[in-house]
């Protein structure tokens, strides 16, 4: 089988903090102060690095080598910040690598960047040509596929109308139709970018399957382990910018899931967290004794322990945090926000922990994503997703019907345990 994509020792370095200050006079001021041996007045606070303007670096990718075979679907999984999106950005030539080489056979396209460059004043037809050209098609190519594109989009007689008059549905359909007819040799799909619209996601996944059956290569970045397991031939697990595991989907996906469930037990301390006003170090479901609980019971109590690290400065700011529960069917099932009152802020230490308790976890068995985020003055300063395995609650099902009559999950289609009861109107029957 021929190789469609070959990556050799790829690495990408990002600078943290500020290298320049974005304004020429500040750069000159820094330079002038350093020249006189004085402290740089523009050193960012909290970095602990002085004198060099706080330029620290962080490797988003370090030494990634892989090759993708033609006609295969290659899944890429990994935690947030593992380097998945950076890898796709380099392959699609949006940014250059710091070290290494990527060799590509044929055209690369990204499925979810549909509608890029659409101009509201131009008609649908003009935008099809413009968008096609931006994606790398020649005018002749677009012309030969034009009727197909219009058919696929279902825009029909509105093709001569400026797209600013389109409904948002028509707009997306037309944009997607152009992307779908690009016929790239390598298709990149970053599922993380596809927010909301479940129907559209399904369409994307369907298109991926079709594309690979036509003998083209797909690189699929996703958090959705179900989709990865069913669609991908091979899965690469990236961790901290390196390939952690590379193998068939049946092996890598379960291993990744296990690791994610255990992940909370380890401290999170990458260098790039340093300097944050507030971040989560560890988030664990715990039992009454405060010990790590690998899985919790559906309908049972849940206690989450959130270890944090913060700077004393946050006490004077406006802080709130939230914990969102969701899965691949419902991205936000419910959430537990918390706004810090003055007394809560006074109690903050440099390192400490919070406890979130749900006396009754209203989720059916399965794996859920628990996303914790903290906001300071309205800005998200840290987010930390972790996984939670909810298991069958034997007590709940075997217990006396009169005691817990209405907390039964009704099959796999449901997500929540709800409190409800039916009653018959006795009077009428009489």
């Amino acid at each position, binding site marked *: 089988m021929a190789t469609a994509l070959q990556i050799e020792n790829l690495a990408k370095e990002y600078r943290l903090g500020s290298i320049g200050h974005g*304004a020429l006079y500040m750069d000159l001021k820094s330079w002038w102060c350093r020249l006189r041996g004085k402290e740089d007045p523009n050193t960012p606070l909290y970095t602990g690095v002085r004198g060099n303007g706080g330029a620290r670096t962080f490797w988003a990718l370090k030494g990634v080598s892989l090759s993708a075979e033609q006609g295969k679907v290659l899944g890429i999984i990994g935690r947030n910040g593992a380097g998945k999106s950076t890898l796709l950005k380099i392959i699609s030539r949006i940014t250059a690598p710091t070290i290494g080489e990527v060799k590509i056979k044929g055209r690369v396209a990204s499925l979810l960047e549909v509608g890029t460059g659409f*101009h509201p004043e131009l008609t649908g037809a003009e935008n099809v040509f413009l968008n096609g050209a*931006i994606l790398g098609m020649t005018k002749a190519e677009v012309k030969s596929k034009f009727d197909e594109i219009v058919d696929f989009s279902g825009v029909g007689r509105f093709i001569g109308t400026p797209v600013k008059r389109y409904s948002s549905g028509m707009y997306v359909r037309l944009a997607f139709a152009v992307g779908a007819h690009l016929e790239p040799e390598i298709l990149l799909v970053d599922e993380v970018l596809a927010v909301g619209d479940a129907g559209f996601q399904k369409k994307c996944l369907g298109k991926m399957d079709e594309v690979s059956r036509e003998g083209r290569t797909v690189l699929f970045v996703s958090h959705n382990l179900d989709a990865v397991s069913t669609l991908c031939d091979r899965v690469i697990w990236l961790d901290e910018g390196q390939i952690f595991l590379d193998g068939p989907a049946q092996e890598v996906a379960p291993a990744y899931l296990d690791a994610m469930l255990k992940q909370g037990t380890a401290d999170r301390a990458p260098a790039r967290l340093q300097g944050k006003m507030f971040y989560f170090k560890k988030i664990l479901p715990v039992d009454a004794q405060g010990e790590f609980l690998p899985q919790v019971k559906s309908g049972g109590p849940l206690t989450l322990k959130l270890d944090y690290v913060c700077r004393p400065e946050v006490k004077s700011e406006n802080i709130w945090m939230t914990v969102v529960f969701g899965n691949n069917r419902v991205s936000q099932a419910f959430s537990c926000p918390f706004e810090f009152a003055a007394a809560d802020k006074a109690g903050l230490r440099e390192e400490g922990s919070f406890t979130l308790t749900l006396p009754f976890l209203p989720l059916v068995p399965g794996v859920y994503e628990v996303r914790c985020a903290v906001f300071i003055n309205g800005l998200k300063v840290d987010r930390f997703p972790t996984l939670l395995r909810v298991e069958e609650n034997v007590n709940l099902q075997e217990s006396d019907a009169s005691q817990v009559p209405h907390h039964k999950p009704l099959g796999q289609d449901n997500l929540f345990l709800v409190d409800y009861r039916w009653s018959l109107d006795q009077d009428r029957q009489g």
Partner: protein
Amino acid sequence: MENIEGQEGEAWTTIIRPQHPWYQFELGELWKYRDLIQLFVRRDMIAQYKQTILGPLWFILQPLFTTLVFTVIFGKIAKIPTDGLPQFLFYLAGTICWGYFAECLNQTSQTFLANAGIFGKVYFPRLTVPISKVISYIFKFIIQFAMFVVFLVYYYWQGAPVHPNLGVLALPLIVIQMAFLGIGCGLIVSSLTTKYRDLVLVVGFGVQLWMFATPVVYPLSQIPEKYRIFFALNPMTSVVEGFRTAFLGSGSLSAPYYLLGVLITLVICFVGIVLFNRIEKTFVDTI
């Protein structure tokens, strides 16, 4: 499928490396995307005057009003001499040349900032954007130039002392020089603005000040001979003087100074492209 295996190794169509050597302009790739340039030009032209009442008439009204204001202020009130030429024609010539250059510079200098969204999503040769801007403004210049010719014929017929000569054949060269200079300066500024946003503010009034350093509202003949070298270092001097010499028959720039202007233009354009090529690879990370 089997026969592909035999030629593996040579079949790569794209190789992505950290940095290309500075002299590699990837012009071949630019040529592959020529349809895109054409479509960008079309988009700019359509988008600019859609939903305006007067439409492309603005192409003519802008320089016309500017010239009228210049004629009143600099000609009638300040009484700056115009080498004996009709004041209106003198200022019109300067205005349309300067207008084209200023617009090229202003538009291309925003390349990175204005297109950050699209550049962050799709790859295509970034140089297509400034090139298409410069081309779309050529159409505007042609319309304005046609208006200039109409006035020129009118004044000539009225017996005004204007002397169009064989120099008019150099018009394409003059336009190319303006385009190169505009794009060169624009690329330098756009590359630097990814790091220093101050320059965005500088460009606005900088272009205006530059106009007064160029013989647009006054003839070069008003400048003492010993200072002319400083004016010659400004390539727009050779453009404006060249244009007036060709179409109106009055100019005071000597041949070596023209060459100097052309040379500086080429250097600026080259530096602009080299800088732009360096920045485009990683600007997404800094913006």
